[in-house]
């Protein structure tokens, strides 16, 4: 895998595209062609954005959502990594459980959201459980994939040199599978974030998602957009952090 050369032109086109969208938004709002209820004017949204990042309730909602996300991803990682390792180590385990887990992941789990509410209540517990459920699948599937696809020669060689199970895990299975596992964690965290915001919006008391749906119901679209912009920025930061992490793990194998 060769690293792509940084392409200034491609980057300029990307930035230009985003700027064009913002300009379109700005002029649509100013011309009055679209009602401010559907599409609030850009300066109004910017104003609201500055207002909300200065308000205490914003930080409470942000803290709730981030807390839910961190706990959900931690739970999903704990179960996903350990179950993935146990399944991935056995060929029969992979044969049985990999299609089963992939099959469940293909089910739109969101239809079970009412069940999560029944079991865990309407507050953050149900959001954590729901987010963890969604995040679990990419993590467990990638861990199974990563562990089971380690080149068997590496395992044979290690056994011939006297490696025990613990050394095999630490020195061979983990480093060999890590890039794939980290990809699973990245996808898990992204999907978990999505699931948490969605479940907050559908039925929640606190958090960024429930704030956005409350504002929408109150026709307070300018503030709603400000929140949406913030969520987009947050998702961008999350993605950037995780993909930087992922690149770091890929490096030793692909550095040229």
């Amino acid at each position, binding site marked *: 895998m060769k690293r792509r050369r940084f392409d200034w032109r491609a980057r300029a086109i990307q930035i230009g595209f985003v700027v064009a969208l913002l300009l379109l938004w700005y002029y649509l709002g100013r011309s009055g062609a679209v009602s401010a209820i559907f599409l609030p004017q850009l300066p109004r949204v910017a104003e609201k954005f500055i207002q909300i990042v200065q308000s205490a309730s914003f930080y409470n909602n942000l803290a709730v959502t981030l807390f839910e996300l961190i706990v959900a991803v931690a739970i999903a990682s704990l179960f996903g990594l350990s179950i993935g390792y146990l399944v991935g180590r056995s060929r029969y385990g992979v044969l049985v459980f990999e299609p089963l887990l992939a099959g469940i992941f293909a089910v739109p789990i969101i239809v079970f959201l009412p069940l999560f509410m029944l079991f865990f209540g309407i507050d953050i517990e149900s959001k954590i459980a729901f987010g963890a459920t969604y995040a679990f699948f990419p993590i467990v599937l990638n861990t199974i994939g990563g562990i089971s696809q380690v080149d068997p020669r590496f395992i044979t060689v290690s056994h011939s040199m006297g490696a025990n199970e613990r050394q095999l895990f630490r020195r*061979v299975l983990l480093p060999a599978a890590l890039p794939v596992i980290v990809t699973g964690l990245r996808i898990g965290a992204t999907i978990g974030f999505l699931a948490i915001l969605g479940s907050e919006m559908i039925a929640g008391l606190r958090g960024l998602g429930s704030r956005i749906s409350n504002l929408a119901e109150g026709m307070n679209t300018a503030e709603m957009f400000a929140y949406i912009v913030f969520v987009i920025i947050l998702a961008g930061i999350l993605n950037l952090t995780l993909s930087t992490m992922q690149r770091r793990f890929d490096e030793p194998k692909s550095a040229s």
Partner: protein
Amino acid sequence: MRVVPVPGVTQHAISVAGVSHAYARPDAGVVQTLNSVSLDIRKGELLCLIGPSGCGKSTLLNIIGGLVSPTAGEVRVNGQPVRGPAPKEVAYVFQENTLFPWNTILENIKVALEFQGVPVSERQDRANQAIEAVGLSEFAHSYPHQLSGGMKQRASLARALSLQTDILLMDEPFAALDEQTRTYLGEELSVLLAATNKTIVLVTHSLTEAVFLADRVVVMTARPAEIKATINVNTGHPREPSFTTSAEFSDLRNDLYALLRDEIEKTVGGFVGRAAARDRERRAVAGEGGARS
């Protein structure tokens, strides 16, 4: 036939007694790879196993190394029956590059020493020594993918040497390399190994490599493999490159090929031999008829 170690008498480093091996394949039923192979290998000897592709040479090597269990028979290493890998006594060099790509050369060797149970304090020195022995000091901190195929195999050899075992098993260590590199590494190996007095079993496809390196070449038959013949090479180590141009060398190489030819034909289902046989038959018939001389 079991070799019982007798005190005071030179004991065989490796003793293979009546070893057979078979495995079940879903599409082809039971495949018999080895048929009652018996072989004694002296301490300090370099023995080459040669035979047609897929005949079970590598399986025999893996049985000696304890990576595969025989279906019948027994292998003893230093008089002890083999029950599994014996990392203190046996080190491996495999055909393809089996260095960990996520570790540098130095780290690879240190991990090997960790696996073998060498104390942390000794690992660095032993790893450096082994890297120096194969002339890769400059590349100690390089990753395997940064090295050429020949260097990678040298690094694999360094890893095996660092384990300081009495026995070294090499499974076609140079097969993936081009011929010049292979020849050069063969010469290097001869020099390196003359100094170590290790017992070495080398599986190879190359007649030249076998004659150049071995004290004794064991020719195996097509599957199920048996021992067809054993050829002694009585030139001392290290061997000079000029050995390859000697009459002794070419005689041995030709003998070896003659022994192998039938077996290779069986494996590849060749027609050269059959065509020749038909030709002979036709001539014989014609001869009887008196039509030709």
